[in-house]
């Protein structure tokens, strides 16, 4: 776990004092709301319909148990006793009072957390693979680089008033859990022919109104030149990105406009002076950061713990949970465990202060005091002994975070939708709840297998419907809520946008349509070993379109 040194600590505390002064100027009337807005936004404070909202960064999705307790504390002291984990490794508090926000931020600073640049047209919280450092397949721990980027981007004097917000994600593993191809800049660690590590830089991805899968602009950038490349790419964006229309201001529009080859020419020109300048990352600094992410002192254990194997054999419920919640760890005898924040009733990503405290205690006892936040709005315990899994499962069940639905159809992502959001055309959360109900039989969910379902209540795409294996987009048709359905989208290393499978359906019909798509898949798949997304790639969208239109699909009898 990274720990602040005196530089990091000083900066965050100074920032709290600065914000305290800004709030005082706002409360005294010296600053108007319009003048205050950019200042509060740069500290993660939004003004919503009824109250201010504070968004707190969880850099590269890593939390200590101490930090989790800090999040619980501020939820109780300054909010209504809960927080909401988002799809970008942040936590949001929906009811803080303006006058108390400086104290809230000061309390968060005590546990080395802050809301700096969690909103505004600047570089946002850097996200990373939630399994960084514990998954066997990775080339390197992406958090090391996430921390380096966090520091470089914090209060960057040149890049704090960009055309629009800017999101960077990092993965160190070939299998991409960080959705790097749908970020403004995505970084994938790769090795060159000489065996040296570096980065593939992907640029111009993003969802929203005009979705794009990002394109590779640099195949291989040496580690020492990472920051220089980021600065060059972002300077080009800062200078040439559109500022006349907020819906055309993201980097993806610029990349599409001038082409990735020309973009690279412009960046290369900047690199001439930046590449060998003071932005060159000193190996000593990388080593210093890396030391904080050193693995904990694992026990020397055999893999395939017999007690775990026995429990899998004896307890069907445990086995069902383990099948989707437990991922192999690079250390023999250990496991990575996902905690579901997607219960049948409740809002995806919500977590009460009591749950946070309990998870912190559990992390102390079972996971070297470490917790991760996944962009699917679930939590992760990254270092659990296999033999502890049955006991851990019971404890997680007792606090309601052991629903065995990780990666399944009910592990869905839905934006707040028409119930909460003034931009939305249609409800999202109730659609998600109805889908949960339709597929409430967990045996059936497990039979269906891996399936990402995403719901957005409007074209701003906060529910990332374009990259859902099944995507649902709320649209307004003459004042009525309708839903356009896509299939085949994905945000991983094979990222692509989903294909529309027919005319939009009504609120009443949307769950039946999802059910039809799922039944068609079950009928046409080669077997349980062919997940939904693979079947869609093999079959194309046509059989699903036909099924939705009521035509026969020649389903295997």
């Amino acid at each position: 776990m990274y720990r602040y040194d005196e530089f990091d600590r000083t900066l965050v505390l100074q920032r709290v004092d600065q914000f305290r002064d800004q709030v005082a100027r706002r409360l005294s009337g010296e600053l108007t709301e319009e003048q205050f807005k950019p200042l509060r936004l740069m500290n993660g404070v939004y003004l919503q319909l009824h109250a201010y909202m504070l968004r707190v960064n969880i850099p590269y999705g890593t939390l200590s148990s101490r930090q989790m307790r800090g999040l619980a504390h501020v939820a109780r002291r300054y909010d209504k006793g809960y927080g909401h984990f988002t799809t970008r490794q942040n936590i949001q508090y929906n009811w803080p009072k303006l006058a108390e926000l400086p104290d809230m931020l000061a309390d968060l600073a005590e546990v080395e957390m802050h809301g700096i640049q969690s909103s505004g047209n600047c570089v946002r919280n850097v996200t990373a693979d939630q399994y960084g450092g514990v998954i066997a397949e990775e080339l390197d721990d992406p958090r090391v680089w996430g921390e380096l980027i966090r520091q470089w981007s914090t209060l960057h004097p040149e890049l704090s008033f960009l055309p629009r917000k800017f999101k960077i994600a990092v993965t160190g593993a070939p299998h991409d859990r960080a959705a790097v191809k749908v970020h403004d800049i995505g970084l994938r660690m790769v090795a060159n022919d000489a065996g040296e590590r570096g980065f593939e830089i992907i640029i111009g991805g993003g969802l929203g109104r005009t979705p794009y899968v990002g394109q590779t602009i640099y195949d291989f950038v040496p580690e020492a030149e990472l920051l220089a490349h980021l600065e060059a790419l972002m300077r080009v964006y800062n200078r040439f990105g559109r500022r006349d229309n907020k819906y055309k201001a993201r980097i993806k529009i610029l990349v599409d406009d001038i082409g990735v080859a020309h973009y690279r020419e412009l960046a290369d020109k900047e690199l001439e002076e930046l590449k060998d300048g003071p932005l060159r990352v000193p190996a000593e600094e990388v080593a210093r950061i890396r030391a904080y992410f050193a693995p904990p002192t694992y026990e020397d254990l055999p893999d395939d713990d017999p007690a775990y194997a026995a429990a899998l054999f004896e307890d069907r419920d445990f086995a069902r949970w383990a099948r989707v919640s437990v991922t192999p760890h690079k250390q023999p005898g250990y496991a990575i465990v996902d905690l579901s924040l997607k219960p049948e009733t409740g809002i995806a990503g919500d977590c009460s202060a009591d749950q946070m405290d309990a998870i912190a205690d559990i992390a102390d006892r079972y996971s070297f005091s470490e917790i991760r936040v996944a962009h699917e709005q679930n939590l992760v315990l990254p270092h659990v002994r296999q033999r502890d899994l049955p006991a851990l499962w019971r404890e997680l069940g007792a606090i309601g975070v052991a629903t065995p639905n990780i990666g399944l159809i009910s592990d869905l992502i839905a934006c707040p939708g028409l119930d909460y959001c003034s931009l939305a055309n249609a409800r999202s959360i109730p659609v998600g709840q109805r889908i949960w109900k339709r597929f409430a039989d967990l045996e059936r969910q497990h039979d269906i297998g891996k399936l990402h379902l995403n719901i957005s209540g409007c074209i701003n795409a906060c529910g990332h419907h374009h990259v859902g294996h099944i995507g649902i987009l709320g649209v307004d048709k003459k004042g009525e809520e309708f839903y356009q359905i896509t299939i085949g989208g994905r945000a991983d290393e094979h990222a692509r946008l989903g294909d529309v499978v027919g005319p939009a359906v009504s609120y009443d019909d949307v769950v039946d349509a999802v059910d039809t798509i799922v039944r068609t898949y079950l009928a046409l798949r080669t077997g349980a070993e062919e997940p939904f997304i693979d079947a869609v790639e093999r079959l194309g969208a046509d059989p699903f379109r036909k099924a939705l239109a009521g035509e026969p699909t020649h389903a295997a009898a």
Partner: protein
Amino acid sequence: MPLLKQGQPAEDPFVALDDPETPPPNDPETAILVPLARWTAERDSLLGRSGPLGVRMEPADDPEDLAGDLDRLSLIAVAFPKFNDGRGYSTARILRERLGFTGELRAVGEILRDQLLFLDRSGFDAFEIDRPDAVDAWVKAHAEITVFYQPTGDDRPVAFHERLRRRKAAAE
């Protein structure tokens, strides 16, 4: 509008020739400030003047257009029509760090007190700022944050270099 140079109130000797119809003052010693477009159009005659010369750049202007003239310019004013248009920060860094401009670099337009440090770090040494307590605001903005993570053209020590320096000093 009040002008601050290096944090102190300063007189502005430059006559702004924003209107393309306005002829330059007869006295060739008078300091003048012209938009980049006018500079490009009247460059040769303006270079014949003996007084200080300044050019005003809009956000979309390319600093490379001035690359050959920088040793003749005493002032470059960079416009911020809106505080949230951040292009001028890049303009400043290119002028200072790539093209080596050493004259006065002045931020003009809608400048918030809370941006002064960013402007300073990007290479500006002068600001037009419309508030009575400008000097106080400047001092405060510079005292508020003392940790810097990004090397820019200013001489401020950057955290990752400073960490290295301290470690080496401790090892000796």
